[in-house]
């Protein structure tokens, strides 16, 4: 069988295509950007507490609804601005809309570590009057990506 140059190019292109597809499928199976970020918090949580035993979406949900005290009086809970359900549109105290925190409603959330850290820094201080632990952050994110 004579392999023409055209056929050779075709075969090569096919191989490249299949490889690309395989690599991207494998990548998807590994982790979403959100799961990568949660994995980062897991490593941090382990280093903060040797008894760390993983994150819990249920615990994150309880954290979201809690009124922990210690923060600023205007914002006793996450739900002050985000409403009782993360599926809802929230409102800042100044009246501006906040896209729902649930990943299913706002799919581009939780992909930018810097942005996540900025808002944890601000809102943990505003609601709890202290920084959140890696455990709390991971639980919270696990809850939000499950919603």
């Amino acid at each position: 069988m004579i392999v023409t140059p055209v056929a050779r190019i075709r075969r090569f292109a096919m191989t490249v295509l299949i490889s690309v597809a395989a690599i991207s499928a494998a990548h998807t199976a590994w982790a979403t950007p959100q799961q990568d970020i949660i994995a980062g918090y897991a490593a941090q949580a382990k280093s903060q507490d040797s008894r760390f035993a993983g994150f819990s979406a249920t615990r994150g949900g309880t954290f979201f609804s809690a009124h922990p005290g210690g923060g600023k009086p205007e914002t006793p809970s996450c739900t002050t601005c985000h409403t009782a359900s993360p599926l809802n549109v929230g409102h800042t105290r100044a009246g501006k809309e906040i896209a729902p925190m649930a990943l299913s409603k706002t799919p581009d959330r939780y992909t930018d570590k810097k942005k996540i850290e900025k808002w944890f820094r601000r809102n943990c201080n505003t609601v709890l009057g202290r920084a959140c632990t890696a455990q709390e952050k991971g639980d919270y994110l696990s809850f939000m990506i499950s919603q």
Partner: protein
Amino acid sequence: MLKFPTISLAAIVTSILISTSANAGQSYNPVSDKIALKECSACHMAFQPQMLPQKSWEKIMGNLSNHFGEDASLNPADAKHIKDYLMVNAADAGGARGRFLRGMSGSSTPIRITETPYWGRLHNHEIPERIWKDPRVKSKANCAACHREAASGYYQEE
């Protein structure tokens, strides 16, 4: 043949009357700096810097970790960048005498635009308390609830 110029003249006269009327609305330069626009509009509209004097912006930017009851802290580089932008565009920047300085005492440093005498003159008698409490308004900081083009710097009379 005569109709067209008559109509356009009428339109011109009307538009002059509207634009010279005291109630026609006001224009401010919209916030043009990208970082200021992004950061200052995260929780509320990015208010135009011409609405407060330099010393007010200085005070606000010096206490971002307790910004009207919330932590709005920024990284130091962004905070400095935004403060510099506010300084060169404030009501009194470069010796300007912006509208928002009218009636303001030299010894006061308002940190809310709604505390300025000028804002008060335009709103306090005219707007009943129930409007501010309406859930669609929620806060006096929500300019766009009534002035729909506020973020682009145009405050029409309602």
